[in-house]
């Protein structure tokens, strides 16, 4: 796969060393090119890329608030359409909190109305910008600052909200999951999303060195472990057709993924086995 050389997210941004979010945005923008308008929800990405009077964005970019990125994008897309600028791509970047929690209503509305836009949820599985609080996208067993483990708690006690399937229920033409550790798979999906008429949703898993608790050089390795253990499955739903886009040759033990992160360090073997059983069940169903 030919990867375009041009970068649309300039360096000098204030992301942590080893940030997974900026990797995801860089790769997505490479595929979308310069005739693109980006909308951000409030969150890490917005804060690290636009410290006034500077910006990292090489394309037009707008941010308004936390929960309304999809609604802002609806207005942008409609306004571009009204000016005949239908060749301009509108892409939204929202974190898991801005997508699965506070921004869910605006996103549902935008998807249901059929705006021609791409929504990319960069999922680091907690509110990282405010200091690692639990979101609806936080996985079972993870310790966060608002779902801490303790004498009476093993951490987050609810399974991760299944955002891609909520999007699928909207009957939109394209939904995909992706990982920054599988860039070609992700970039192909971004390309496909940009070529499809109507709303597209990509749920991008993106390890976070600060929130997950691992050394910064391991960002890609962690994303890989998530996929290779079956903890995060890469698939797409194109016009209602479900397809797994990557299958590990041999699924690795979920413990390898869990043990590499501070947020799961407190789990007992029993709890880790419970997570393994859950992963097994999903993988068997999806033939991964």
């Amino acid at each position, binding site marked *: 796969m030919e990867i375009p050389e041009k970068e649309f997210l300039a360096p000098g941004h204030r992301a942590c060393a080893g940030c997974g979010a900026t990797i995801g945005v860089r790769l997505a923008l490479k595929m979308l090119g310069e005739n693109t308008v980006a909308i951000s929800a409030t969150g890490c990405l917005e*804060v690290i890329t636009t410290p006034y009077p500077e910006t990292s964005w090489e394309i037009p970019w*707008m941010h308004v608030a936390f929960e309304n990125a999809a609604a802002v994008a*609806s207005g942008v897309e409609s306004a571009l359409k009204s000016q005949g600028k239908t060749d301009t791509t509108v892409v939204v970047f929202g974190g898991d909190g801005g997508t699965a929690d506070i921004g869910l209503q605006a996103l549902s509305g935008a998807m249901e109305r059929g705006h021609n836009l791409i929504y990319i949820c960069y999922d680091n599985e907690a509110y990282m910008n405010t200091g690692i609080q639990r979101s609806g996208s936080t996985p079972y067993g993870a310790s966060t600052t608002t779902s801490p483990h303790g004498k009476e708690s093993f951490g987050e006690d609810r399974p991760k909200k299944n955002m891609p399937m909520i999007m699928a229920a909207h009957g939109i033409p394209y939904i995909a999951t992706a990982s920054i550790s599988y860039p070609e798979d992700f970039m192909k999906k971004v390309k496909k999303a940009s070529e499809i008429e109507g709303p597209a949703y990509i749920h991008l898993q993106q390890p976070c060195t600060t929130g997950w608790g691992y050394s910064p050089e391991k960002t890609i390795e962690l994303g890989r472990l998530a996929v290779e253990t079956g903890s995060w499955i890469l698939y797409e739903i194109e016009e209602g057709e479900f397809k797994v886009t990557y299958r590990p040759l041999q699924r690795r033990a979920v413990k390898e993924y869990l043990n590499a992160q501070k947020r799961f360090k407190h789990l007992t073997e029993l709890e880790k086995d419970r997570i393994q059983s859950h992963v097994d069940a999903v993988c068997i169903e999806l033939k991964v």
Partner: protein
Amino acid sequence: MVLKVMSANQAIAEAVKLANPNVIPVYPITPQTTISEYLAKFVADGDISAEYIRVESEHSAISAALGASGTGVRVFTATSSQGLALMHEIIFAAAGLRAPIVMADANRALSAPLSIWNDQQDSISERDSGWMQVYAENGQEALDSILIAYRVSEDHSVLLPSMVCIDGFILTHTVDPVDVPGKGDVDKFLPPYKPDHAYLDPKRPMSIGTFTDPNYYMEARHDMELALVGAKDVIAKANAEFAEIFGRTYDFIEKYRSDDADTIIVAMGSICSTIKDVVDEHRDNGEKVGLVRVRVFRPFPTKEIYEAIKGASNIGVLDKNISFSVGGVLHNEINAKMDVKANGFIVGLGGRDIKPTHISEIIEKTKNTTKTTQWIGLNKEEL
């Protein structure tokens, strides 16, 4: 001139048709709903070419309006009460991002208890947002105010959004004869919106909605203050040109038999029509009573109001809102900004009828200056 009989909601829709925005994101709410409906029909019939977005909430209505405005096009939205309260966060953002959005607000009480009827608590509660606010007395003024609002908001020295407020049901659902101006005249008055301060265009990439640290935020807010205060000159000029083209004259305030008055009532919105009748009755009895109607509430016309009321010995200010434990907002602002001792009256909350006898009661009560806010029209006498 052909007068057509219509509600203020329809008059506003006609104004929007004439202003020809590119994008209209709206969400229905009583008593604004018919504005949404008229505009939907205009789009369905091809009378206007706007993109009409059937958003899933008022929060998304103002968010989509702000996104659309960010691309550099004219937008319109409308709401009321709970809807405006739901927009609150983005109302501030729209002003801060200097987006010249024009919005109609059908004034309605805020919950709880739930009420669908008129007062002005909803828009008054947004007074600190940086939006301009105009309170119309009738359908004609509602229509004209929308056109003037676009002209002022889009002026490059202003670039702040405008809210045109009309009393729920009293104006939104009653009909009046309205002169709908011709498109040619409107185009003369209202040039196309061409921003250069911020717009989303891949040919000239800008970042809008950035993150400021304490080195910049305060200057950004100070610039808004300067723009809002400076908007007064732009409004005056727009009013003058409007009068020249359309023959109808508007000012920051309207003075009704107040020049030589001993007693002056100050109020906003549709109640002023009732007050004018009561003023006439009192004048017929030889009492020097007058009305000062505040039309433009933001930017606050301190000088204009003061000049109009300073000669009166008795001043009564009517508020269809309450800042609990302080009193009515218009009353408090007048007393705070001017060397006058006005009496404050809370009236008409949640659609409580304001009768001519209530106005006469207020005129009588202004004779004794008191700092105590008086509630008029309560079923049970309180305070």
